[in-house]
Each structure stands twice: as C-alpha cells, then as structure tokens.
C-alpha cells in the first residue's frame, strides 16, 4: 500500500514537473555543462587567468612599454641586469621605470614577458589542436574498425608512450633541427597517444550503445554513424584532456626552449629567458623569477580550467 502511494505521488510530481518544463527552454548537454561550470570557483578562476592571458597576448603592443628585443643601452641611463624599478614603490623618479627590471642584454623584462605570452599561447593552442585532430582520428578509426588495424595503430601509440616524453621530444627536435615550429611538432607527436587512447576507449564504449544500433537499423551508413552519433558523444573527455594538454604543451615547450631546442634567441620565450639567465639566480633573481611566475601562472590557469571543465562535463554528475 505504501509503495503504491509513493508511486502515485511520484507520478504526480513527474506530471507536474513536465507541465512546468513545457515553458522552459530545452537544455542541451553543453548548456547544462556551462551552467555547472559557472558554479565552480576553481574552474572560473582558471577561466579568468586564461582569458586574462589571451587579452595580454592580443594587446601586447599596447601593454608592453618597449619592443621585446629593443636594447636599451645608450637609449636610457641603465645598465645590464638592473633590478626592477617601480616609481610607485619608491624608486627614484629620475631612473626610468622597468617594473620587472632589465635582462643581460639590457632589454625590458616586462615587455619580453608580455610578448612571450603570444609565443606560449599560440604554441600551446597549435600543439594541442594538431595532437587532438590527429590523435582522435587515429583513436576513432582504431576503436571503430577493431581487429588488425586497431592492433597496429595502438602498438605504434604504445611505442611512442614507451619513451619518456621529454626525451622523445628532444630526439625528434634533434632530427628535425631546433626551432619553435619543430618543437611544436615534437610535442604534438609526443602527446598524440593520450588523445588516441581516450578517443579509442570512448568509441569502443559508445559504439555498443543501443542508439548507435538504432541508427544502423534505420539504415545509416558507417560514416554517418561515426560522424553524427559516435564522435559527438565521445568529445567530452577529449575537451578536458585538450585543456589540460595546453598546460602540458606550454610546459614542455618551455622545457625544450630551456634546453635551447625550442625558441631561438632573440625570440622572447619564457623558457629560453629562464635558461639564458639561470646562472644569475643569486645575483639577479628577478631574471628567473618573473619568467618562472609567468609559466607557472599559465599552467595553473589551464589546469584549473581543465579541472573545472572535467567536473562540469562529468556524466556521472548528471542528475
């Protein structure tokens, strides 16, 4: 008796919910995810940092007081590796203001860091796009086709995964020659297996769903099933992985540049800025401190945003 009463109430509530819903706008998965994302403080902090960085990169010429490669000796009354001078904080008015100081070649560190954000962001973005597109294509083919093709593709991915990622990236750059574009390529290759594997696992799971079978029973072609049903439903974890991947890519690029294999001087790149002045850690700490902070902040921003997105897109949190 109690059970049936509970059922009855439940049914009534369902009906009521249904009626009120008729007046709401339909909510798709992405819209729901966005709503959840907004409610998460860490994710919003990450988004804030990332948007800030993008703005800095876009408006670098306006923000930066100097050209990134402008050598200021003879232009201003300054010397090599001058510490930061901020007028607001009591630096004498007659010395020119350099809020992050000057580097070993008497260039304004702040301007270089501002311009460096362009390098890091484009590199992070292109690396991840490349790895995402190629990796998920491999994964989708592998997962859907199965059999020997799956085996071959996945064993290749295993071989790439078998190397420590930075070591393999160094080897690839060593073959292709140093430079930012080759570093980008190397990092994309190294991060490829992650995307391929996640995509493959998604496709394997999703292709067993009845809605895929239903499409087949209606007469859809393999291609349209893959493109319209399976891939759109597989994207969620890849979006998260890609966001976190930007952070990794920027970090690896900075690492390669630090080793002299990425950005070449005089390009303003955070990793190479660190590398050039690493012997001056104790005498002029600002020269390693500020590029380090910049890298850290960027990576932190993307990681927080990625975490927030993972929480927001997690299907297990779907009511």
């Amino acid at each position: 008796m109690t059970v049936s009463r509970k059922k009855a109430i439940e049914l009534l509530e369902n009906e009521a919910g249904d009626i009120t819903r008729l007046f709401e706008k339909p909510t798709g998965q992405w819209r729901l995810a966005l709503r959840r994302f907004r409610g998460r403080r860490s994710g919003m902090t990450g988004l804030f940092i990332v948007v800030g960085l993008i703005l800095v990169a876009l408006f670098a010429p306006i923000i930066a007081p100097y050209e990134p490669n402008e050598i200021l000796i003879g232009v201003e009354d300054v010397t090599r590796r001058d510490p930061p001078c901020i007028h607001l904080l009591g630096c004498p008015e007659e010395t020119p203001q350099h809020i992050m100081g000057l580097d070993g070649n008497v260039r304004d560190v702040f301007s270089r860091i501002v311009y460096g954000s362009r390098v890091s962001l484009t590199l992070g973005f292109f690396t991840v796009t490349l790895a995402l597109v190629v990796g998920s294509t491999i994964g989708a083919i592998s997962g859907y086709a199965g059999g020997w093709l799956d085996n071959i593709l996945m064993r290749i991915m295993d071989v790439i995964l078998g190397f420590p990622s930075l070591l393999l990236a160094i080897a690839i750059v060593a073959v292709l020659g140093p430079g930012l574009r080759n570093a980008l390529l190397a990092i994309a290759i190294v991060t490829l297996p992650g995307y391929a594997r996640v995509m493959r696992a998604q496709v394997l799971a999703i292709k067993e769903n009845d809605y895929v079978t239903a499409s087949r029973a209606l007469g859809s072609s393999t291609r349209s099933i893959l493109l319209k049903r399976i891939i759109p439903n597989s994207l969620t974890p890849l979006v998260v992985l890609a966001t976190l991947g930007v952070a990794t890519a920027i970090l690896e690029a900075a690492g390669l540049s630090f080793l002299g294999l990425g950005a070449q001087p005089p390009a303003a790149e955070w990793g190479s800025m660190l590398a050039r002045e690493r012997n001056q850690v104790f005498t002029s700490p600002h020269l390693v401190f500020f590029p380090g902070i910049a890298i850290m902040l960027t990576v932190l921003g993307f990681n927080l945003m990625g975490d927030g997105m993972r929480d927001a897109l997690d299907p297990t949190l779907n009511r």
Partner: protein
Amino acid sequence: MAGNLVEVRNLVKEFPVKGGLLQRQIGKVEAVADVDLDIRHGETIGLVGESGCGKTTLGRMLVRLLEPTSGTIRFDGQDVTHIHGKDLRPFRRRVQIIFQDPYGSLDPRGQVGDTIAEGLKLHGVSDKDERHQRVVEMLELVGLKEAHVGRYPHEFSGGQRQRIGIARALILKPDLVVADEPVSALDVSVQAQVLNLLKEIQQELSLTLLFVAHNLAVVEHISDRIAVMYLGRIVELTDRDTLYRNPLHPYTQALLSAIPVPDPDRPRNRTILQGEIPSPINPPSGCHFHPRCPIARKDLCDVEPPSLMDAPGGVEHQAACWLRAGDRAVATG
C-alpha cells in the same frame, strides 16, 4: 491478410569464443541453434525464455543487425539472409526494432525530434516541414506532445523515453517490428501503459510484431501466438490460449508455474527446475533440456535431439519433446 510475412528456416547463429595468448578461436557458442519460425501477417508473436537462451539474438537476426551463420530468413518472399549495403536499405525501411533500455537507446545529444526524424531523412523524406509534421503525428500517436520535439532525452522519464523509441521505430511505417524486451526496464505501473500503447498501435497500423520478453505475464497480455525458447532452440510454439491452458513441454510447464499468483492462500503447484541452465558452449547431448527435465527418459532424451513436432489433438501446437509430441508421444498428463 493471410500468409507468412517472415519465414525462418534452420537458422543458426554461432559466436566464436576466443582465448589464449593469441586470441585464437577455441570454441563457439551456439546462441541460436536450428530455429524454424513463421510469422504471419499482422500477428503478434511472443518469444519467451530465460536470459541467454538466444531470444535477443534471434530478434536481432530478424532485423539483420546480426548476420546468421547458416539457415535462411525470408521476408515477404525475399531471401534477406545475407543481403548487404544497398540491397539492405529497402529492408531497413520495412523492419524496425524497439530496444530494451530506454536510457541507452536514445542519443543523449540529439533532440527528440531529430532522433525520431532520422529514419525519414535516411529514406528520402527531404522536405523539412513534412518531416516535422510526421514527427508530430507520431509523437501524438505515442502520447507525447509537439512541444517535446526540441527537448533532450534526459528531460524524460523512462516510460516517455520508451515511447520516443517506439516513435522512432514506427515513423517509417514498417511492416515488422521486433520489440526486444521493451518493457523489462520499466516500472510495473509504466509497463502496462507502454504495453497497451504497443497493442493499440499494432492494431491501428496493422503491424506484425515480434515481442521478445522473459516475463510470461507480459507476453500473455499482448501475444496471439507464443514461442518458448530454451538454449537456442524453440521448444514450444502455439497460440496463447492453448499454451496457457495446456503447456506440453516440461520447460514451459515450469515457466508457467513460476508466474506468481497474487493470492497467498491459494496452494501453489510449482514445478521447480533443478540445476542451472547449461552452458551453450558445451550443450548437453540429445534434448538440451534433459538434464533438468523431470520426465526425461534414458536412452531417448539424452541421445536424440527432438525437433518441433505436432502435438496430438489436432490443434496447431508444436513442441520439441519426444514424450509429449510427435508420433512416439505418450499420453499427456
């Protein structure tokens, strides 16, 4: 309309069992073994059996989601057993399936209207307004509203989702619909609604329905004829009333005695089967049912596999039992 819409002969589906280091085939499972079945125009035929007996496999072969290992399926006179690609398309339009799980059978990212309209799009209804109109008609037929067109599956209850699944299957006005346990995943209160809906629609559109279920009470409600499956074979086939009144096969008798009666005082005459359902990788010799059968006779049932044989009495009633049907049948008890 008289005559058979579907004629199934000697249908077999084997699945390979792989194992070992190199994933070599080390055995096979005979999910469906030598099934003959005719489905008549406009009838509802119930297919019952316990989990793993091959009823879903049989259903999926009929809609050609699985390719039979051997045997033939004739649909409306045409051999459709091994057709592929372009030849399969007209068949797809005429044969549809309703799935068991209302949660997994709808694309979570697709709006309901698009999900239902997919079949129309694939089969040449290119006019958007016409598609919309037919989707709305279909939604109303299954008891939903036009306002639901733009909604997503997660906004619906299980019963409503199943209605959407039914609408998707019926939008092409198919001749044959295989309903693969369409109500097993639903609450009992909703089961009745969906069953009645299916029944109404079946009459309205003069559908032929193959209704797969493991619940005899559900099947009784909807079917004209019932086929009972055990371990890949059909063991009994007759019209509903005969089956419930006079089941012949001991397995059917056991199944029927397992239906709960909502009366605690009524004495129950249960036939409780012993043992487990045997592994289809290594099925028993002779009659697949003999190790669990209360009436099995030595040197007959464990040696010779029985096929479907006419029961004594003249009614259209077939059973795969040496002792209850065919020429050698002894008097039924």
